[in-house]
């Protein structure tokens, strides 16, 4: 954080006049307090990820604040999923830092990182349910990571509650993942990610491969998680309809391989309902699904 940013006035919760970070004051109950600005739930600074001497992500700076749902959009191969995995250090960044609630994940040891990860829910593209466990055991898994001595009855009640939450009946708990359809697996993935009551939910292409009705069910689930559980979310998606519906902010990544010298990889970062007004042709082409320029490039590449 720069010095200028450090000194930026911060609106205090009680609605007082803007005050300065670090200011000591007397609160209404008479206690002396020091004002601290709440850090973003997730912040990445100058993040870079390189595979085989090729940058997939480079110089990414992004803050996600509490209560926000941010949709990350962009064409295939632009590094959206890599960003999500780097945000939880499932992929080690080549450069830059990742902060979760102000904690630098790069400085944590294995045990500390495990603790932080229990506060982040991750919904994977293909649900990634454990094949060797039943649906119930899959959902119990994160709960048992937090408290291995949770009584069996309590676990079963929580599984039933979570299954209801995602619109499924508790009898599904006894079934194996292989017995479920893609949409059902995704909903179980939701239930599992919610089980440990995370502060941040990461969704990796949650509606990909689903029919329009099931996609909307998943969208509604994401909205419910945001509104009812007050969970901050980051959604990686290609689906503009879904992005506009669930997110209050959209960030668009552009592939590193297609950037010119000096161009940033984030080509849009703003309110979800204003993306249609963007003047950047890269954004409008993606939002409107226009292949025009890309077709021309393909033709040129063939040397016609």
């Amino acid at each position, binding site marked *: 954080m720069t010095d200028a940013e450090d000194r930026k006035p911060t609106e205090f919760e009680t609605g007082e006049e803007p005050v300065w970070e670090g200011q000591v004051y007397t609160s209404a109950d008479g206690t002396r307090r020091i004002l601290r600005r709440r850090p973003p739930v997730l912040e990445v600074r100058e993040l870079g990820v390189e595979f085989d001497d090729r940058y997939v992500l480079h110089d990414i700076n992004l803050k996600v604040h509490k209560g926000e749902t941010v949709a990350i959009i962009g064409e295939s191969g632009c590094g959206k999923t890599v960003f999500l995995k780097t945000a939880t250090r499932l992929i080690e960044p080549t450069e830059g830092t990742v902060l979760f609630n102000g904690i630098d994940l790069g400085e944590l040891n294995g045990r500390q990182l*495990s*603790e932080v*990860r229990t506060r982040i829910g991750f919904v994977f593209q293909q649900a990634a349910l454990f094949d060797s466990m039943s649906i119930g055991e899959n959902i119990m*898994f994160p709960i048992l990571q937090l408290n291995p001595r949770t009584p069996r009855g309590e676990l079963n009640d929580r599984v039933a509650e979570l299954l209801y939450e995602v619109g499924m009946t508790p009898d599904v708990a006894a079934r194996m993942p292989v017995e479920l359809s893609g949409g059902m697996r995704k909903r179980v993935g939701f239930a599992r990610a919610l089980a440990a009551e995370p502060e941040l939910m990461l969704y990796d292409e949650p509606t990909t491969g689903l029919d329009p009705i099931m996609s909307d069910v998943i969208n509604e689930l994401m909205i419910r998680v945001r509104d009812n559980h007050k969970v901050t979310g980051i959604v990686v998606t290609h689906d503009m309809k879904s992005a506009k519906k669930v997110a209050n902010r959209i960030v668009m990544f552009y592939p590193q391989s297609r950037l010119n010298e000096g161009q940033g990889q984030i080509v849009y970062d703003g309110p979800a309902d204003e993306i249609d007004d963007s003047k950047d042709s890269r954004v409008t082409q993606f939002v409107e699904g226009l292949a025009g320029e890309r077709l021309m490039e393909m033709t040129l590449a063939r040397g016609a």
Partner: protein
Amino acid sequence: MAHEWTAEKLSLTDRLTAVVGRIGKSLNDRIVYAGQLAAFSLATIYWLFARPVKASTLVSALYRIGVQSLPVIMLTGTFIGMVLAVQTHPQFKAVGLESRLGAAINLSLVKELGPVLAATMLAGRVGSAIAAELGTMRVTEQIDALASMGPNPIHYLVVPRFVACLIMIPGLTIMADAMGVLGGAFFSIKLLGVDWGYYWEYSRNAVAQYDVFAGMFKSIFFGGAIALISCYQGFHCDAGAEGVGKASTRSFVVSFVMILVLDLILGIFLDKIHVVWFGGGPRAVV
């Protein structure tokens, strides 16, 4: 604009440079592989002591790796004993040393064939299955899902398999030895007509407790190597069904080569130890 292509004949220097480059890349890849495998092994040993393994996970691994491998190990052990009898009997008979057949069969089995055979079967049956299972978990993001919920994947997935291989392989080796000894004895005595008294007497004189210990000692290293190589291949599996298949095949090939390399190194080491502790050179069967 259309590109124009021309084919230029490569000079001898260009061809030599290309060959040297390929050899260099291949060598570099192997060094990187060895380094990554070493780092993976160190991480496994760290997690082995950092946190206890969950009992239910370990019991399940012990059952799958040990108990379920027993029938195939017993069967192959029996046949190896009998094949040894078939192959060595004519040679011993030709020089009039038929009565010492048991010593040759049993010493070969206990020192070399039992441990190597048990390890090879374990690499084929268990190692490939471990690589395929973990490889599938890798490509379907189950390993990422596991890590995202807190547990360390090496602690949760690798350590139980590693410990189970270490614990079970000496038992499997003993079973392979025992079945090979019985198979060899059955074939030699019942079918080839070797005198049973001499057969067992010479066997007893040739096979020492140290030989049994040496075989079991080697097997522990084989088991550890199989578990680490198979788990590593699964963890570093390429995408798709083809990637899983390659990981499974590679785990067997690398494990088998490693078993033979370890067998040679440990064989020399154990012979030296024998000389230091018990004196004298290597013992002769006849």
